[in-house]
């Protein structure tokens, strides 16, 4: 099975949620898909799709079910932690915006289908240091918080705007502030693209979000600000439609979303089939300064795919070849790395 075929298999399993009828999957296909599902965070979702098939009693299905059970408990534990984090920060007059993770996980049909490891909090740049201090206090250190200085993906809007559109959710009796639905869907789309479409579950997030949009979803606001980013987000929703079967007919973006650049679908499928490690979990390039063994493999692993290269270079989603964008992204990354070199060398010596 090629990487692309493997990616198609993953897409078929995830998409079963939005297709009528039981998922038709052979034991061989499950054997191919299970390791990737487990590694890419989609095991619980995979279990949901096969638990009513004749594969449910196989050892592989048992592995997926174990992941589902474990994620269900982890989500419950994380929910306690999120409530504690917000109560702690609020007691110090701090009010962050939460995104991704639990915010989208709660929209899934069952807890535990969407595992998340950290708590993503987005804060104003001018308050970043205060948040950092608050999260380093005794009792707070055990919380796994990913503190974002601003909201990079949404920085074409002011933080005041993001706050003005934010909404409150209640979790274990504590109010949790999160992005408005429009900003959050945009964040999910742009994060998925920036990370090179690495995790199928991130596209599943977008599918779940689109599938549960309220009638009063403000498309004008969603599509406002940077128009290139707006176009990227439409294409991402189109990708969720194309690969996962989410219904977008009747949405104001449907026409563009159904007309995707020809490289977008194959790139995504290949990435899923490769089961690559997301950026944040790779060994740092700086680590190769002292011990260059493995540097060639690391460089190869970092060759940007068409999606991350286009987004990284702020390129358009059209049908032009992607190689110039990939080369451009490499130059940008190398330049950024070279700028840090003196600091890294002095640190390592």
């Amino acid at each position, binding site marked *: 099975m090629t990487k692309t075929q493997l990616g198609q298999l993953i897409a078929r399993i995830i998409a079963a949620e939005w297709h009528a009828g039981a998922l038709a999957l052979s*034991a*061989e296909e499950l*054997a191919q898909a299970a*390791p*990737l599902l*487990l590694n890419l965070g989609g095991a619980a979702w995979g279990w949901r799709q096969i638990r009513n098939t004749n594969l449910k009693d196989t050892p592989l299905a048992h592995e997926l079910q174990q992941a589902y*059970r474990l994620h269900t408990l982890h989500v419950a*534990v994380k929910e*306690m932690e999120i409530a504690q984090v917000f109560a702690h920060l609020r007691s110090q007059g701090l009010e962050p915006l939460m995104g991704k993770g639990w915010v989208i996980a709660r929209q899934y049909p069952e807890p535990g289908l969407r595992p998340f490891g950290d708590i993503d909090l987005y804060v104003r740049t001018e308050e970043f240091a205060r948040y950092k201090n608050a999260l380093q206090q005794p009792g707070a250190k055990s919380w796994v918080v990913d503190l974002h200085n601003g909201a990079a993906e949404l920085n074409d809007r002011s933080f005041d705007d993001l706050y003005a559109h934010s909404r409150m959710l209640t979790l274990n009796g504590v109010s949790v502030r999160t992005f408005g639905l429009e900003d959050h869907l945009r964040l999910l789309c742009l994060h998925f693209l920036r990370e090179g479409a690495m995790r199928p579950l991130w596209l599943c997030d977008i599918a779940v979000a689109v599938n549960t949009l309220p009638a009063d979803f403000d498309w004008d606001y969603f599509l406002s600000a940077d128009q290139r980013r707006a176009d990227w987000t439409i294409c991402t929703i189109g990708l969720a439609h194309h690969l996962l079967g989410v219904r977008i007919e009747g949405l104001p973006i449907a026409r563009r979303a159904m007309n995707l650049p020809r490289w977008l679908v194959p790139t995504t499928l290949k990435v899923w089939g490769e*089961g690559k490690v997301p950026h944040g979990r790779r060994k740092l390039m700086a680590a190769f300064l002292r011990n260059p063994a493995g540097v060639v493999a690391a460089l190869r692993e970092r060759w940007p795919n068409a999606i991350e290269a286009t987004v990284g270079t702020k390129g358009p989603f059209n049908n032009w070849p992607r190689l110039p964008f990939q080369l451009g992204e490499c130059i940008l990354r190398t330049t950024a790395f070279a700028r840090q070199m003196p600091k890294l060398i002095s640190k390592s010596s």
Partner: protein
Amino acid sequence: MNQNLLPQARTNNLVTQEMPDEILVYDLKNHKAHCLNQTAAAVWKYCDGKTSVTEIAALIKQDINQTIDETSVWQAIERLSNVNLLETRVTPPAGIPRLGRREALRRLGLGSAIAVPVVMTILAPTVLAGCTFANQPNGDPCCTDGQCSSTCCAVGTCATAGNITAGNPCTAPCVCQSGTCSGSPLVCQP
């Protein structure tokens, strides 16, 4: 009456999730997760420090309309005690047969007779932790064939390539001599 005969369930530092056919328990003290089937969950529920094993068996019979004998209740209590879900350690009387982990897993996996109490510790699936492996020896986790020194990654674990003959169970094509693992259940093809 001996205090050990009135088992009491732990309530502190536990997170529980009720599922349709089971209860999931996360122990915040040791970060271990457990799965209790309906019968074991019912035993745990009645472990209130006041109810005897005989009474628990009778209560469960009413509760889930299934026959459960005292031996099964003791087996559940022993397992609950072993995984620290009881306030104090409880040892069953001599003569109570033990229910091994393998047998418990088999029963839970098969979703068999509901009156059999099963307490299972949930282990993280092998490849859940990450996928940055290279040149892994047999038995170590992997995600792709190329990450194993044997070039064979079978369901997340590096395995010897091509050593299983036709007709025997397999988990991935690379473990079969023929390179083909198919059918239901999966077996190496000629």
